[in-house]
């Protein structure tokens, strides 16, 4: 598997291959079909950053532009899923959940339970998240915490091209509603990705790096930061184990707990705001279930309790840095 493609290409390829395999898979969203009704080139766009580009011509009629009516079309995706389609709806920026959240959390997420198990809602909602684009407070949020809180949803946060493809294919084939979140700063990341179809299962964390001193659980793009930090820490004699949960719901609690049982120290790195976050979620998990193994306080490294600032000078301070992870790991190692 020597072929390298980007995270963005991996997502496009997963959509393309799944659409070819299963006629029930459809893609809908704003400009995903390139701009319906416009007089110029067809498929001019492919969503705002071009992720779906090319699908329009390959899968006629199944790549569908929408008006700017997120409740309308996300709900339509949910409804279509109820009768056996496998819609992939693009929400562009996850920050826009506020105009369509009801259809996700009160409708899609709850149907199966409320209806006594008599519904399946295999819808996928793709959205971009994360800071780093100088896109300011309404286009830079993480918000996976909010989805993770909601029973009935599954939440996927791939950190690399391989996982992006395999997890997206799994998302489409999965019979529950899935929120698939793509960090915009990862779109250009390259990695080895098999050409064939494959799935990465939900609820199975990746142990990205093994080590005995400190466990670092990192979400999405933060896996990169953790790797930078681990390389640095290696030089200082601190061996990090890095765990990428890949899905925040379901969460692979076993892999996390086993690692902390080995290392006795935990850092959680989560780009989102700190309160009621994945960082606290995992910290709480470990404080309850691996307490006896803990040799030091659990450290949460997150973005601050503030909106995401615009200016690059502030945004760089906002995003959790490798340096912060390094400092935390060292202090944990030295903790007595």
């Amino acid at each position, binding site marked *: 598997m020597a072929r390298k493609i980007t995270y963005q290409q991996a997502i496009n390829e997963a959509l393309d291959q799944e659409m070819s395999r299963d006629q029930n898979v459809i893609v809908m969203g704003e400009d995903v079909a390139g701009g319906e009704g416009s007089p110029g080139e067809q498929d001019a766009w492919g969503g705002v950053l071009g992720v779906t580009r090319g699908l329009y011509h390959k899968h006629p009629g199944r790549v569908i532009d929408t008006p700017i009516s997120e*409740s309308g079309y996300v709900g339509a995706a949910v409804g279509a899923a109820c009768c056996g389609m496998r819609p992939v709806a693009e929400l562009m920026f996850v920050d826009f959940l506020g105009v369509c959240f009801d259809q996700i959390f009160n*409708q899609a997420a709850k149907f199966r339970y409320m209806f006594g198990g008599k*519904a399946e809602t295999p819808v996928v909602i793709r959205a971009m998240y994360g800071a780093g684009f100088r896109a300011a407070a309404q286009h830079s949020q993480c918000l996976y915490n909010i989805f993770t809180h909601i029973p009935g949803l599954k939440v996927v946060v791939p950190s690399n091209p391989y996982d992006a493809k395999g997890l997206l294919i799994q998302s489409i084939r999965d019979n529950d509603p899935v929120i698939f979140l793509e960090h915009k700063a990862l779109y250009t990341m390259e990695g080895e990705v098999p050409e064939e179809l494959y799935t990465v299962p939900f609820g199975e964390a990746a142990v990205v790096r093994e080590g005995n001193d400190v466990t670092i659980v990192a979400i999405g793009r933060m896996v990169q930061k953790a790797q930078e930090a681990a390389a640095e820490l290696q030089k200082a004699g601190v061996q990090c184990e890095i765990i990428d949960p890949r899905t925040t719901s379901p969460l692979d609690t076993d892999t996390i707990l086993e690692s902390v049982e080995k290392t006795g120290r935990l850092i959680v790195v989560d780009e989102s705001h700190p309160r009621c976050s994945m960082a606290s979620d995992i910290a709480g998990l470990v404080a309850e279930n691996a307490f006896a193994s803990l040799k030091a306080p659990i450290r949460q490294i997150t973005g601050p309790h503030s909106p995401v600032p615009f200016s690059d000078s502030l945004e760089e301070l906002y995003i959790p840095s490798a340096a912060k992870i390094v400092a935390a790991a060292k202090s944990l190692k030295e903790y007595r």
Partner: protein
Amino acid sequence: MTKKLEREDLLKAYRTMRTIREFEERLHTDFATGEIPGFVHLYAGEEASATGVCMNLTAEDHIASTHRGHGHCIAKGVDPVGMMAEIWGRTTGTCKGKGGSMHIADLSVGMLGANGIVGGGGPLVCGTALAAKLRGQPFVSVCFFGDGASNQGTIFEAMNLASVWNLPVIFLAENNGYAEATSSKFSVACENIADRASAFGMPGVTVDGFDFFAVYEAAGEAIERARNGGGPSLVEVKLSRYYGHFEGDQQTYRAPGEVQALRDNKDCLMQFARRVTQSGALTQADLDTIDAEVKALIDGSVVKAKSDPKPSEADLLTDVYVSY
């Protein structure tokens, strides 16, 4: 032209309306005993709407309903016995006791669910209609919603979306004059809800919702157009609920005698009975037989519901996901 109603159709229509009425009257009585849990929003008085619409539909067509969903469910073919058990919170209920009155659904008969969220159904039917369209199937979808819901963003978005995608959707506005205690004269900024159709490039019509035949015709026309690829429509039916917003509501916001006058002069079952017996299409005996059968059915459903088991701890965490 909508299909002419034969004897069998008329019997079915009457049975459906009577079943809804009996179901709701019985709930009204039983609620007063304090035994029925939760919120119950009764549809009594509005039977001609659900029935007139659903008589044009098959099990492959979809409907989305509201918090006031019992009538839509029964008209679409959901089993009233299961519904009663559901409302009583029993494992034998349509949703195994997990949903209750506000969430009764049965996808096997195209019933997408009552909905606790006002306006929630609009987007959903765009999806079921889209599925039918993409698959080349002649199935339509109907979204029932109230005058209050007609001001919810989801309904507006759904109307535009259905039009833009040219979907086989009927937006069926049940204008009963009130959203909870608030008048539709206040909350809807235009004269008729149907006036909003033109904003979404679709035909709109307002009909008398006490008149089963008027609803049947108007909905039928819209449904036929949708089935034939003619796109969405907005159909407004003007009607009234006999009971409060939910059980317990004393309705002091209504004019004194308002409900009684409607019951006496406009009642949909009364009008239907008069018309079919006067025309000779059905006899009073036909209707009496149905009345008796329906009464027995509903009585039986209550007896059964009361004695059926409630769900237990083992059920608490099942069916959150297909797999997790």
